[in-house]
């Protein structure tokens, strides 16, 4: 079967494919999510792709602090509702100082500051915001040991309000690890 599209149709199709690709690509998502367990401590490595939307970039460049909030939850499967064993929230706050020409990155775990970094280049700053590497998240509780568990992760990139009343968060969809078991 031979297709004979007109130029106009071709342009429209190309435009639609391009827009779809841009929109799909613009959607933030979590990638390269991996876990490691050592001495019953679960550490995670994860990256966010497509995190820096124009809105996020505008806020960062204007000097507003922008916080990415990673939420990790240790769960067990149940029929109706999964059981939550532990939950940890990691927040990375980036604030640009144009006078010093540097980005300050504050890392917090459940609200407690555990690291601060100053970088001069946006490449380093953006990498620090979207990439967590082998970060210790939580101890596996005693009750969860020996049970099949899994870890979910999601990240909130920007909290905003549409029409000043409806909460609308820019966030990556939640992803889950494979089910595993932590023994003694």
């Amino acid at each position, binding site marked *: 079967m031979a297709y004979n599209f007109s130029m106009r149709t071709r342009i429209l199709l190309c435009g639609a494919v391009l827009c779809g690709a841009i929109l799909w690509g613009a959607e933030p998502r979590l990638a390269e999510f991996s876990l490691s367990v050592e001495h019953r401590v679960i550490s995670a490595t994860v990256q966010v792709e497509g995190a820096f939307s124009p809105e996020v970039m505008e806020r960062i460049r*204007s000097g507003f602090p922008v916080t990415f909030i990673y939420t990790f939850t240790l769960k067990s499967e149940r029929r109706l509702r999964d059981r939550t064993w532990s939950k940890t929230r990691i927040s990375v706050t980036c604030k640009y100082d*144009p006078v010093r020409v540097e980005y300050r990155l504050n890392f917090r775990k459940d609200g407690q500051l555990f690291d601060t970094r100053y970088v001069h280049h946006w490449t380093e700053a953006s990498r620090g915001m979207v990439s967590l590497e082998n970060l210790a998240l939580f101890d596996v509780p005693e009750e969860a040991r020996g049970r099949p568990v899994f870890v979910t992760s999601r990240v909130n990139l920007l909290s905003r*309000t549409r029409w000043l*009343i409806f909460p609308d968060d820019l966030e990556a969809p939640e992803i889950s690890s494979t089910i595993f078991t932590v023994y003694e």
Partner: protein
Amino acid sequence: MSSPQRPPLHRNLRFLITLIAILLGVSTTFYVLILRNRNLPAALAANRVMVFLLWYANITFLLILAFVIVRQFVKLVLERRGRRLGFRLRTRLILSLMALVLLPVLYMFIIASDLILHAGDIPPGLPSVLSQTRALVEDWDRNRIAALKGRAQNLKAVLEAAPPATWYPAVQEFVSEGGAQIAEVYQERRLLLSLGRSPAYLSSSQHLPQDFLREIEGAGESFHWSEGRGGWVLRAGVRMRIGRREFQVIAGESPEAPLAGARAAFLDLDQTISQWAVERGTLGTTRLLTFLLLTLSVVFAGVWMGTYLSRNFTHPVGLLLEETRKIGEGDLDVHLPQASMDEWDTLFKGFNSMAGQLKSYRDELAREREYLSSLIAHLTPGLVSFEPDGTIVTVNPAARRMLRLPEGESRLFPELEHSSPVLWTWLERALAGGREARGEMPDLALSDGTQVSAGLVSLPAGRHLLMVEDVTQLIRIQKLATWKEAAQRIAHEIKNPLTPIRLHAERLKKKAVEGVLDPADAVASLDAVLIEVANMKTMLDAFSQFARMPIPRPEPFDLGELFAQLEEMYRGVHPRMRFTFSLPPGFPPLHADRELLRRVMVNLLDNAAEACRMDGEAGVEARVAEGAVEIRVRDNGPGIPDAQKERVFQPYVSTKGRGSGMGLSIVGRIIRDHEGTIRVADNSPRGAVFIITLPL
């Protein structure tokens, strides 16, 4: 009180405020719970809650305002359809007050909201200027940093060429020769040596962040801005590796203070403006929401106050109108409640008092009416009040019986025409006469032989009152009494001449018996007897004339002609008497029986001549007064004593001491038959005057 009491205003307000507070609390809690579930930071959640509260308050106010306004309009429409009393006043009042509040506030809101939304607008040329200036600053930064990195590279070359033991003098020489204002060497991020000739250096060299050194380590080069008491300091560092040891070689300088300060100030301002550009919409909307909240509060307060005031004003008016309407419909059992405002309370109390007095009067009137009805019902005379068209207003049983009006009959005529034609004829004539009239027996002898005395009185509002009295028995008694009196009088009058007749007859008999009858004496006695007999005949003729009094046949005639005839008749009859007759020119024709009126005038003029003993003056004059003809007959005789003035028109009463005493009685009878009146008064300066009034 017919209308239900309204709940007090403060109770409504309390209910409304409580309802709003509950709704606000529930909604906020619900919203906060949602936010908490979304794992947001507390500050962000609080910010959202605040914005939400603003929105919520605005929407709540809007809804309440819309509810209040719509409710008021619906009520006004319903009141208008129901034609409720006072709705026009209420409509005008509420619409006026709402317009007074809404229009200026909405106008101000439109103006002010435009100002608020555009208050934070960045001037059109500013972003371009900022962008160009920022590019200049960044270019300046890059050049500075590049220059410093070159100096650091130079220092690194100096250090690499010299053994570590001589680094200090080498660096000292480097600085003193102008290689850099600041020179620092770190070994594995620990300070090895530091030299500088800038004042800023002294306050900035001790606190270099590890990240800066770490970045030199990692990236091979980096820079760092720091601010101390001496001003801004810019450092640039490069990595130096000697064997296995890592060094960070740093060259720094303190730019000229005004330039560095201006740069920092500009970048700060640029950041502030950028932040403002990002948040302008949110901030403007938040301020607009706050202003909208205030506006709505004012509008709500105004509308509420307007509604409250109009209700406070129109509600009492409505009550007053409702109760007034009831009174108008005859229901006097009204009572207005106590009002909250003094003025209304005073008015209501006055209204209640007035209604109470009205009710009291009405009850009293009803009692009086009942009493009068009872009295009239038990009265022997018959009373009928009726409208001009004959509709009976009031009738008592005696009247129904006498006039033979059927029970339930509501009209006097034409029913009367069939039941009592004689009375109807009289009534018709009396009504046509337009004045009070009275009929007496025997003219009003009804068909069943009953004789009635009737009278007609004009009442207010064109009504009439017909009074009918059954005088059959009275007339019979009067007739008996009259005949008895007449018999006694005739007997007395006859007895008087009989005595001289008997005396003359006895004297003639005695002289005839004694044989001494003188013919002259006999003639004299017989003359005396004949005189007495003639007197008796005269008296009997008078009685006969009174009994044969004809029914008047009135017809129009000229009174002047009658006066002329009388003047001609009395001329020369009594030489020493002077008779005068006076009539104004253009005198209207008189409606009466001419012959009977001539007899009246003759009778009165004869009486006047006798009163003056044929030597005096008698005058007759006539005039029109108050729709009637007044005829005065005066003399200058001795006059009539007051005690006899009322009795002179009764039969057998004479002021002359002789005669039958029937003359004035006949005069009175003729005048009354003409529906006129006659009375006697004193003449001035002396004598008597008879005043006759006849209808025209």
